[in-house]
């Protein structure tokens, strides 16, 4: 224990923050993506109420993920953000609209249709931009002299568009399954009807991305299919198949919680797959986590605070979810 690699520790913390953000804001954004399909009135109000108490806390993980990347891996932050510049701006602007719509649609019923559109468009934009960013990172970023060296549309490719669509479907799946769990009556029914096609679409997109990734670079191919590693990596698609099967089975049986947890499991497996593809690179084939790492003084300084505070935040967040464990009504939780 005398020698702990702080960089690995920080890669885990940032990775955790990003994953926490993806699943937690994922279902928020997913509800925004599906929002136009829900009918005005009770259905929309229930859907909105099911995330209103938690979305702000969820989004703070985005700041923590970005801030953690900046603080612990400044070089990665400084390469990835310029490389995906238009995507980041689009994501932020989408989140602005999404964020203010929560308050405004309720405060200003006369313009509610406008804020509903803002909520939906903002959510779709943010989700798509996040997905394309993922694809842009996976397909590689041109780096020279510790800086981004490409153009401002390098991120645009069929592959990155595919990952963008995949994330939109994935978030929609999280959103739909969350609503199955947290709402009732017509809203829940609607979510149940949506979960099946969205789930199928997510799995197709996931399969397409997974199939395309190993062909991006020889290295990915090698990581996934060389012996003996393939014995381990083969577990990932196997588990995906199991989770997918369970998901459809639970949906058919009318289960309320299991679909959401199966959607979460699919995301977790996707995340593990990404880890297999990328580790130890943070910008594939250009910058490893050790290249990008801030000096140990910076990492250890932050670690002290993180070790104390992150568990408190997790406990607090868990408590908040526990408190709101019931079904969301149109007038709040009951």
């Amino acid at each position, binding site marked *: 224990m005398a020698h702990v690699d702080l960089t690995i520790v920080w890669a885990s913390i940032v990775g955790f923050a990003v994953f926490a953000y993806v699943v937690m804001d994922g279902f928020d954004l997913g509800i925004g993506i599906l929002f136009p399909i829900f009918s005005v009135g009770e259905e929309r109000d229930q859907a909105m*109420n099911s995330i*209103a*108490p*938690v979305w*702000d*806390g969820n*989004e*703070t993980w*985005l*700041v*923590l993920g970005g*801030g*953690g990347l*900046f*603080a*612990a891996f*400044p*070089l990665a*932050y*400084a390469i990835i*953000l*310029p490389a995906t*510049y*238009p995507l*980041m*701006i689009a994501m*932020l602007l989408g*989140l*602005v609209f999404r*964020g*203010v719509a*929560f*308050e*405004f*649609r*309720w*405060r*200003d019923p006369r*313009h509610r249709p406008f804020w509903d559109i803002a909520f939906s468009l903002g959510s779709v934009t943010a989700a798509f931009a996040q997905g394309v960013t993922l694809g842009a990172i996976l397909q590689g970023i041109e780096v020279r002299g*510790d*800086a*981004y*060296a490409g153009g*401002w549309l390098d991120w645009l490719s069929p592959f990155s568009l595919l990952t963008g669509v995949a994330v939109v479907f994935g978030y929609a799946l999280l959103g739909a399954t969350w609503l199955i769990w947290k709402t009732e009556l017509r809203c829940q029914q609607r979510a149940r009807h949506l979960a099946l096609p969205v789930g199928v679409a997510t799995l197709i997109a996931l399969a397409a991305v997974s199939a395309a990734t190993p062909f991006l670079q020889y290295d990915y191919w090698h990581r996934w299919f060389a012996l003996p590693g393939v014995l381990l990596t083969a577990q990932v698609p196997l588990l995906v198949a199991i989770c997918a099967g369970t998901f459809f089975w639970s949906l058919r049986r009318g289960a309320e919680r299991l679909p959401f947890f199966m959607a979460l499991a699919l995301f977790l497996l996707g995340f593990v797959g990404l880890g297999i593809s990328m580790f130890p690179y943070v910008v594939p084939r250009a910058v490893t986590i050790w290249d990008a790492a*801030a*000096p140990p*003084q*910076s990492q250890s*300084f*932050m670690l002290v*605070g993180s070790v104390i*505070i992150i568990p408190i*935040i997790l406990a*607090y967040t868990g408590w*908040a979810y526990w*408190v*709101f464990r019931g079904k969301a009504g149109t*007038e*709040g*939780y009951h």
Partner: protein
Amino acid sequence: MIANLDPVTLARAQFAFTISYHFIFPSFSIGLASYLMVLEGLWLKTGNGVYANLYRYWLKIFAVVFGMGVVSGVVMSYQFGTNWSAFSTKAGPIVGPLMAYEVLTAFFLEAGFLGVMLFGISRVGKGLHFFATCMVALGTLISATWIISVNSWMQTPAGYAINVKGQFVPAGSWLPIIFTASFPYRLVHTVIASYLTTAMAVGAVGAWHLLKDPANRGARKMFSMAMWMAAIVAPIQILAGDQHGLNTLEHQPAKVLAMEGDYEPSPDGAPLILFGLPSNDEGRVRYEVAVPHIGSLILKHDPHAPLPGLKDYPRDIWPPAPIIFWSFRIMVALGFAMLGLGLWSLLARVRGKLYDWRWLKRAAILMGPSGFVAVIAGWVTTEVGRQPFTIYGLLRTAQSHSPIGAPAVAVSLLAFVIVYFTAFGAGIFYLLRLMSKPPLAGEPEPQPIPQRAAGITPAASVAAHLPGEA
């Protein structure tokens, strides 16, 4: 101007726009959070219902302001990477951890306890509710402390070493990095500015409703409290500003000389230039109207103390004097106007006419937005005054930006302008609408529906025991 639109200028414009818009909200929410704490404390102490009503009245406004602060703040945490990646690479090991601490210690605290505040005192009990209010106020102050620490380090860097990659890294202890030479002055000046900004806004709302209904108890109380703040805090702020200026003269003399328009050295004491159009190209102030010796009296507290001029410093470290000369004057003029309003209100109070003098109320309404203008003018003064550096004396702005072409930055700037004016414009409209309603005797608690911009509400567990809600 169009010819000057290189990517760096555009990136600076984008940062200036997004941070100025953002800054409006925290400068209001820092002050409001403390004001709410005082209101609730006074209510619990005195039992006087007018405080409870005012608390509920301003809480609704606080929730909207806070929500917009959160949303516009998320943008800021990514601006460093999108537009200032070279700065981020080099300064990340120092400023990154400070900002991470802001997220860890302040944001989650605020997001958590705001929920309890909004959930209402009748549902969670007085003790827990007041504690939550205090925690939110504390959170806003912690947040201010960290971000001012970051900014102060960029203004007066200390405690760093430069590693083989050319990055600024901690030389040893973090204390000299967090507590730099300008940090205490900047923190005090900024926090007081937030308080004054809030006092001006609260005073204007009070005055507005007093003009329409002089008997409204809530309006009288908020007006009186705001005028006390103006009378007491404005002079303190002027003193704090003076001390901050002396500190800046010591560490960033070129900034102060540009603020003063002092191009030529003044061996026998500098004048105070009241009006003029400074020109860095000509190296002089055109149409200058000046009072001799007062400049040195202010900056050195001695009319004959010599002061250097900008020409004593290399031309390539001059900040853009025309901008900060005027932003500084706007800030100072507004500061003295606040003092004037405070003194006027004291006079009215002594005569027993605080709620009667119509012109005092009209002046207070006029001064309502003055705090926001002064805060942004002050921010422009210190930030533009730091130019041409991002890290003063060490890293030039021209070497800090991202490798992004002008078209991309221009388009994104345009998008920010449109989205901000739509989204936050609507928000400001809703705020004004809330403020235009008079504070009522039976001001309702926030409704028990969880739709709002910010805050999680663990306090619902208490409500679960109430009949009909389980």
